[in-house]
Each structure stands twice: as C-alpha cells, then as structure tokens.
C-alpha cells in the first residue's frame, strides 16, 4: 500500500451497509413510532382543549371581579373632624388634668427656687421703694 492514493483507487464502499431485512424492520418500526406520535398529539389536543376551556372561564371570572376588588381597596382621606373625634375618643381627661397640674406646680417650684430677684419682687409689696431705691 506504499503508493496508495484515494483518487486512483476504484470507489470504496462504506464499511457499514444495512441489509434489506433490517430496512423492512425499520420501516415497520418507523411507521409504528409515527402512529404513536400521532396518538400522543391527538391525546394532547384533547387534554389541552379542556384546559383552554377552564382557562377561558378563569379569565372571565378574574376580569369580572377586578372592579369589585378595586372598590373594596379604595381608601378615602379622613376629614379633620373625624381625626379630632378619633383622637378624643380614647382620652382619659382625669390623667390629662393630673399631668397639667403637675406641670404647673413644677413651673412654680422652679421659679421660687431659682430666681431670688423675682422672689424679692413677689414678697415685697412696697414697689415704690424698690423703684426709687438708689
């Protein structure tokens, strides 16, 4: 084979060739597979037809319920009187009065203890003397 050249050789056949018996079997196998595929397609079409019906019904129901859901979700701004009413509804007036009293007494105590000039002015009734005092 020292001078082997493909184009000078007689045409070489492929090493693998199918026998006629095999081809007959293959024909039957292929036709049977095609029939199965056709059956699968038909079954799929039938099953999806049912699904489409349900899907269409679901779409109609969802579309019809959109306005209802929208209305229930709409929030309105409360008026000022409503806010006031709501705030006053749970107020304990006794506690408020007590807190205000405490605050006032604190103010008074603080002024008495921290400002001697003011204390003097409050205690001394002779205002004229204070004004003219050199």
């Amino acid at each position, binding site marked *: 084979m020292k001078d082997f050249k493909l184009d000078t050789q007689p045409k*070489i056949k*492929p090493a693998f060739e199918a026998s006629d018996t095999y081809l007959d079997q293959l024909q039957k196998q292929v036709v049977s597979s095609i029939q199965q*595929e056709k059956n699968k397609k038909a079954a799929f079409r039938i099953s999806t037809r049912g699904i489409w019906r349900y899907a269409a019904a679901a779409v109609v129901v969802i579309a019809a319920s959109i306005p209802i859901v929208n209305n229930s979700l709409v929030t309105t701004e409360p008026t000022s009187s409503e806010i006031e009413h709501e705030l006053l509804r749970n107020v304990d007036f006794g506690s408020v009065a007590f807190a205000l009293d405490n605050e006032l007494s604190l103010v008074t105590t603080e002024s008495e203890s921290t400002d001697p000039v003011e204390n003097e002015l409050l205690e001394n009734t002779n205002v004229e003397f204070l004004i003219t005092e050199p």
Partner: protein
Amino acid sequence: MKDDAFIWAQLSDPATQERAFALLVKTYGKRLYAHIRGIVISHDDTNDVLQNTFIKVFRHIDSFKGDSKLYTWLYRIATNESLTFLEQKSRKSGVSIEQLQVSEFETSGLDNEMDGEAIAATLQKALLQLPAKQQLVFRMKYFDELTYEEIAEITGTTVGALKASYHHAVRKIEDFIRAL
C-alpha cells in the same frame, strides 16, 4: 425510486403520511443508515438514532419550507442527531468522541469481521484517526457524493473551509494506509 416532490406531497397530507414515511425509509434508509453508522459505529445505537431522525422529521414536518432538498434536510437532522448522541455518550463515559468511536469499532468485532472488502475496513480504520468533524465531511463527500454546497448547508460551514477539511482528511487517510 420516487422523487422528492412526490414523497413531500405524500408527507404533507395526513391521510398519506404513514405510507409516505414507509417510502421515505425505503428511499433514504440505506444511505442514512450508512451515514449514521459511520459516526456512531454501533448498530444498536445507529438503529436508535435513525428512528429518532425519522420521528424528528415527523415532528418538524411543518417547518420544512422546501428551500432545500428533502435529502439535504434529512442528512442535517441525521447528522445533528448522531453528533448529539455521540456528545452525550462521550460526556457520560468521560472519553473524547474520537476515542469512543475507536473503542466502539474495536469492541463490535467489525475490525475482524467487516462486511464487504478488506479495503473498506481499512478505510474505516483510517477514518477513525480523524477528528469527528473531518470524518463527517469526508463521509458526505466521498461516500454520499454530496456537493460542497450541500455539505455546507448541512453542516453550516463555508465551502472554502469544507474543501480544506476534505483535502486534509484525504491526505491523512492516504498517509495512514501507506504506513500499514
């Protein structure tokens, strides 16, 4: 042998589809078998790939526009199925496609009991030394006698690249056989 237009007309009609598939197998089964077996080597694997090829044809029959010839379309599907099959098998076994082909060839016993002439077996052995894509180009050009334009359509490669690939394949095969 019925021509492509006749087979195509029968395939397109659901009433004659099954008969058309029988005709398709009769017309192209032998060539497609040789083409696929040259790639996947084992007969059982070839049988699976060939059946899958015809089922794919049935599933995608609506997408065939008739722009290309029917057998070019069949070859493209068969080639893609064969290569996908080999890639999956190679990934599972962890060896390259070329190594896989050589081991399939050796374990099948075809090395010693080849049908036909001894030169056909020698050529097959030489082919298995080539990268998978180069083998493919050689098979389609040499055995199936497809034109470069048809091979380009099947493989999605340029005619120039195919010519170079075929030239390299021939040189390597001749070197391999001369060295025996």
